[in-house]
């Protein structure tokens, strides 16, 4: 089959790619991406401030829990929380302090927001991090396998399962796991704890095992709900690659089928997958909030939900900022990692 004769051949590249030029171009590319990320962070800071000001309710009145408080005392509280200043001044104070790392004090817990976040962040990172690693690995491995033996039983089964679990509400799955594996139904005794992060009172290695024991069910819930997304993305990326000519070249060179897949097809298929994995992180943050609520996991998700009811403005803004920063950082990471995988970008 004679191919479509494209008379256009790209303009000639530099004679030989010099080492420094590549490094320098990558720096410029990286700086551009990080610059974009910083702008996004500022935008998040600003929107976080105004968005939560819309929440009805006067935090001070909620704070005093309806106890008899004189107008004077109320005014004192407002001054203490800086709520009496005009809006724009509140805003400038807020930004000034935020940039220096001081996110204000939580009305509810009377402790600096940064401390409350610092307390809960490691727990969320532990849960999200473990789940992220597991479901990404699982998604890529199963996705590759499903694509390579396309439309056979294995492919249809794993894709079907991934799609089903992808459509299951994460909180509902969590509750089911608690019923079956924590409370225990009939013969199956409760294997796992029903909630919380630790039984308390453990030290050293026993503490680690105890936390791991508490970690099992939440991680299984998160992984079950999230790995489908990665699987589908990897699978479609690899399917696109399987039709391309360089694979025929590789086979013509005498490489075995799985070598062709591992050395040639997968690296190319990973490019779009890597970006989409990080972009879908926004959805994982949502999943974490739900799983933390169901499993009483002392993380940011639970804190956020609690803070919203007061509304504990500094804490809510701080958490909102942390959630958005996590997603922005991961997206920027994806942008920085991408050129390392794909030589055509950022050089």
């Amino acid at each position: 089959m004679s191919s479509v004769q494209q008379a256009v051949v790209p303009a000639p590249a530099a004679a030989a790619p010099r080492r420094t030029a590549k490094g320098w171009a990558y720096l410029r590319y990286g700086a551009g991406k990080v610059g974009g990320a910083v702008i996004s962070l500022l935008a998040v800071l600003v929107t976080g401030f105004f968005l939560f000001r819309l929440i009805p309710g006067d935090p001070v009145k909620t704070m005093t829990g309806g106890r008899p408080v004189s107008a004077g005392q109320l005014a004192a509280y407002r001054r203490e929380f800086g709520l009496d200043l005009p809006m724009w001044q509140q805003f400038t104070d807020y930004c000034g302090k935020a940039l220096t790392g001081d996110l204000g004090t939580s009305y509810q817990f009377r402790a600096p927001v940064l401390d409350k976040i610092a307390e809960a962040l490691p727990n969320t990172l532990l849960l999200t991090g473990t789940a992220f690693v597991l479901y990404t690995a699982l998604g890529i491995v199963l996705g590759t396998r499903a694509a390579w033996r396309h439309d056979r039983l294995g492919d249809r089964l794993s894709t079907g399962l991934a799609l089903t679990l992808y459509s299951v509400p994460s909180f509902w799955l969590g509750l089911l796991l608690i019923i079956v594996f924590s409370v225990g139904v009939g013969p199956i005794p409760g294997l796992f704890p029903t909630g919380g992060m630790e039984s308390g009172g453990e030290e050293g290695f026993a503490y680690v095992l105890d936390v791991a024991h508490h970690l099992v069910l939440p991680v299984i819930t998160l992984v079950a709900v999230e790995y489908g997304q990665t699987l589908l993305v990897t699978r479609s990326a690899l399917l696109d690659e399987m039709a391309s000519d360089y694979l025929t070249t590789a086979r013509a060179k005498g490489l075995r089928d799985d070598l062709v897949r591992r050395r040639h097809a997968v690296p190319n298929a990973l490019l779009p997958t890597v970006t989409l994995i990080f972009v879908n992180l926004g959805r994982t943050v949502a999943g974490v909030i739900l799983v933390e609520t169901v499993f009483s996991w002392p993380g940011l998700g639970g804190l956020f939900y609690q803070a919203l009811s007061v509304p504990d403005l500094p804490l809510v803004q701080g958490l909102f900022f942390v959630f958005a920063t996590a997603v922005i950082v991961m997206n920027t990471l994806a942008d920085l990692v991408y050129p390392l995988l794909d030589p055509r970008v950022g050089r």
Partner: protein
Amino acid sequence: MTTTTPPGPRALAWRRRGHSAARFWKQYRTRRAGVLGLAVLVLFGLIALTAPLTVGSDVQSVTEAPGQPLESPSGQFPLGTDRFGRGLLGLLIWGARVSLLVGLLAAVLSVSIGAVIGITAGHFRGRYATVMMRVTDWFLVMPTLVLAIALATVMSRSLGTIILAIGVTTWPTTARLVRAQTLAVESRPYIERAKALGGGHWHIMSRHVLPNVMPLVLAQTTLVISSAILAEATLAFLGLGDPTVISWGGLLQDAREAGAVSSGDWWYLVPPGIAIAVVALAFTLCGRAVEAVLNPRLGVAR
């Protein structure tokens, strides 16, 4: 081909649409998963629409609740009763109306915003495009559920709030996909030919870009519906839904509040979850099948 009076352009257009619809269905039928998904959707659609006839709106009344609170499944109540003694099967059927309605409206809202912004950002290069894409990226960066929760708390508890919260936070993914497709279409030579023929912006967008973007928009709508239904259930579960309205998410929240989990009343908790999962899965299967049929460029059948 002897035709007495040549059919006018209007008749031609309709015959062509009929023809292409038949062609679409012939290809769609080959995808077993898509057909299965469609069958499930039709079933749930019927259930939802005929609910007032089959089950009647008084199923949700608490005062005339037929059974005792929290009865386990029996002949009279195939799925047992809820905390007021109302039959859960009836509530499940009645709940379908709200969940599907919210899912559809939220998806339509989200996809239409996404499509408009996607096409315009794709077509008009320069400042407008960069600004729109900055906004889209910023929205994409936002964790959708966090934003939805914030919006739901800000506004009063009602279905409208839920639909708005979901719609406003999920449009960026569609916008990004549509913009990529628009850029691909605009790079095709027939766009340059249209420009050479003197076609303006509106002509190019409406006559060339839109018809080629429609399959993606259609497929995306079905995929967004499934995530919208999940989002509605999530918000209702977090207690941000309208408590007086019967929806699957609401049922789950009631089950949880009644302590069904620890007391092992599985029949209160399991059916709504399964209903949500089945409908969301059905929509996803249909979406993927539509995408594969209308977008052969995606190559190998998914």
